[in-house]
């Protein structure tokens, strides 16, 4: 058996399975046990996962921003890989948020999108994270690209905090869920926290999986560099 095959991430796969089960349990509970909203009807069931994806996006992007800041202060491949993993997962959950929100809004507000503060800031933060990933993808291993990407990623932290505070600061149509909006019964509360727990555990597992993959890529790159240097030294010795 090769060394690669021997190092299968069993623990990670088990965590991914548990996270998937948590999410599936939440879906079943939402479908079977939660009542339809008195005002919005069945479309309100989007809300359970919409809010969970928002939490996962905000936590991932704030963690990515903090790690990027740390990487700017004291550069480390490990921290860089963790920051990239967080930002990638943040973008995925951001995309889920931006898809599910407008579908809920279509029924609730009568339109898919409106340029109100929380929505606009959410879009801005996701675009910022996408731009960091594009920049890093195109810049490769360049130290400048890494620093510019990290500087851009740091901006996601204050922007994410503003998303959370947007309704309080500037108003707008968006309901503020944690202040009581949207949850009308005990079943709804249970379903909400089940969905949040499932999605957060899924996000954490995905960050761990991507971190492992990025670290492996960094090691492969470093080994390739070492091998090339060794081949050059051998060739130079041969010439001498």
């Amino acid at each position, binding site marked *: 058996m090769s060394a690669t095959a021997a190092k299968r991430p069993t623990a990670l796969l088990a965590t991914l399975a548990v996270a998937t089960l948590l999410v599936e349990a939440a879906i079943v509970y939402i479908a079977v046990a939660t009542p339809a909203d008195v005002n919005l009807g069945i479309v309100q069931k989007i809300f359970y996962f919409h809010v969970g994806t928002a939490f996962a996006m905000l936590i991932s992007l704030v963690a990515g921003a903090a790690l990027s800041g740390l990487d700017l202060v004291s550069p480390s491949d490990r921290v860089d890989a963790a920051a990239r993993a967080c930002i990638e997962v943040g973008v995925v959950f951001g995309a889920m948020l931006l898809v599910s929100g407008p579908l809920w809004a*279509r029924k609730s507000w009568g339109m898919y999108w409106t340029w109100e503060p929380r929505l606009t800031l959410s879009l801005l933060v996701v675009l910022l994270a996408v731009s960091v990933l594009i920049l890093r993808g195109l810049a490769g291993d360049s130290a400048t690209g890494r620093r510019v990407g990290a500087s851009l990623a740091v901006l996601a932290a204050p922007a994410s905090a503003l998303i959370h505070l947007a309704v309080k600061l500037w108003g707008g149509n968006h309901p503020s869920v944690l202040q009581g909006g949207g949850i009308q019964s005990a079943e709804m509360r249970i379903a909400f926290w089940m969905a949040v727990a499932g999605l957060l555990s899924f996000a954490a597992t995905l960050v761990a999986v991507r971190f492992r993959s990025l670290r492996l890529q960094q090691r492969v790159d470093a080994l390739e560099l070492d091998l090339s240097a060794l081949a050059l030294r051998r060739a130079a010795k041969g010439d001498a």
Partner: protein
Amino acid sequence: MNRRLLTGAALALAICLSAFAAFAEAPAAQDLARYKEESIPGGLLALVAYMAMWALLAGFVGWTLLRQTKVEAALQALEDRIDGGAGR
């Protein structure tokens, strides 16, 4: 490398600047009334939302597995190169 870095920076800037669409006008009152009159079943919207969310998540998991397979293949190729070098 600098050219790729500049392209990346330009793309990143363009994406960030696209947020200025936020200054676009709000929909006119008659458009809003028309939207509200159209009735899209809530169940359909919920179903589309759930399907889209899981498709995105499954897509990311699939892409991650693909990347992982590529890295493992690169690692295997490196192992072979090292074994080949040691044999000589």
